[in-house]
């Protein structure tokens, strides 16, 4: 192999790469926030008594989890305008990733809810808390702590999925990497630096969430 490394084009575009990374993080945080709220509601449906709501939650999860995220992204960005529902690139992507995140977070929170010992809800009932208060003050905080490790894994995974936004030309990190790649042909340099940026960010996210988890541990 007689390849001479030249990182100059990569360093010249360093601000762009960082900008792309920041946009990816922003898209991830927004989508995960939306997806978590929806997932929380669906998880309560999935573990609740109402059969129709249970079926809704399970149906949603099993359909969305079996679809490729890229197909959802393209369907929303290119397909929905045919129904008069047109969104710009970033909005389309956030919508797609939120739908996707909701399915995964439903599973995360559902497992968390199943891990809440029934005895503590009964203790809440016994002191006269209303069902809603029990959910809010007792079940939810315990469930969130149970769910932290799985939540962290899915957070990282969903952040990595923001790379797919490049497919509809949202200018995040992978988009810029491809651009620099085709302009400079510094192939090894571009992709190793891009991968390193993703790896470092994923590592930092899990470090951060693991720290949070250990502080919240019961």
């Amino acid at each position, binding site marked *: 192999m007689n390849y001479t490394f030249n990182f100059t084009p990569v360093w010249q575009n360093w601000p762009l790469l960082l900008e792309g990374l920041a946009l990816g993080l922003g898209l991830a945080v927004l989508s995960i926030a939306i997806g978590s709220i929806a997932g929380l509601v669906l998880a309560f449906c999935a573990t609740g008594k109402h059969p129709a709501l249970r079926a809704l939650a399970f149906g949603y999860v099993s359909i969305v989890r079996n679809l490729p995220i890229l197909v959802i992204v393209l369907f929303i960005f290119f397909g929905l305008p045919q129904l008069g529902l047109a969104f710009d690139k970033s909005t389309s992507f956030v919508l797609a990733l939120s739908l996707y995140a909701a399915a995964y977070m439903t599973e995360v929170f559902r497992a968390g809810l199943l891990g809440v*010992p029934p*005895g*503590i809800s*009964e*203790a*809440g*009932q*016994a*002191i*006269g*808390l*209303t*069902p809603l*208060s029990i959910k809010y*003050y*007792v079940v939810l*905080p*315990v469930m969130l*702590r149970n769910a932290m490790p799985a939540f962290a894994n899915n957070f990282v995974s969903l952040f990595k999925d923001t790379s797919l936004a490049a497919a509809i030309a949202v200018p995040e990190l992978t988009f810029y990497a491809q651009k620099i790649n085709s302009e400079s042909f510094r192939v090894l340099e571009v992709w190793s630096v891009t991968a390193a940026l993703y790896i470092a960010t994923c590592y930092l996210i899990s470090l951060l969430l693991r720290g949070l988890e250990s502080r919240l541990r*019961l």
Partner: protein
Amino acid sequence: MTVLIDIQDLHKSYDTLEVLKGVNLSVKVGEVVSIIGSSGSGKTTLLRCINLLEAFQGGRILVDGQPIGYRERDGKRVRDSERRIAKQRAMTGMVFQQFNLFPHLSALDNITLGLTKVRGLSRAEAVEQAEGWLERVGMLAHRHHRPSQLSGGQQQRVAIARAVAMKPKVMLFDEATSALDPERVAEVLDTIRGLAQDGMTMVLVTHEMRFAREVSDQVVFMNAGRIEEQGPPQRLFGSPASPRLRDFLARSGI
């Protein structure tokens, strides 16, 4: 003495399994009633019905003269609303075998949660009262500890404080010492004895026969979903009438 809890012909089934087959029991104000009986005889279920943690299909439970859990409407028996049931539950305090403290809250906040959200006290009042109760059960020094940092006996004392702090009319104990290491049993029994001496009305399910004999005004022997025998402790333990009770006491080492 006025009757505080009046259970009339209580029937309870899990699906097809009838667990309570017509239980009648009344508990007067200030009385301590112990329920004994072999495992599976329905003791826990009876306590859970009194606390409305279980639905029941027949009979009535009156607390302070008021029927709880169900009401008659157009000749039909309908379950009270969850809000109403929550209010009714606040009249009875329950202590569980497995303590069931809220794991994410400190000992203090385990108590203040109910005081602020159910009894509507301000945070400051709630803390003051909670600290008073923690002192009563000898747990004030541990008020900022999480349940996972406490021993079983300590957790159960906090759980007792949490229940009494709600100022219930009656306290229900379901085998409060069964999950404890033997050397931790005494501290919890002492706490319960203290409440009894203060005149708290109590229904205890227990396997501690000596303790039942010492603190109870009445002892109830349950067998297969019915009350088989009932009376003051001296008579029940001294001259049991039913052969099943004699058998049970022999097996319990009395």
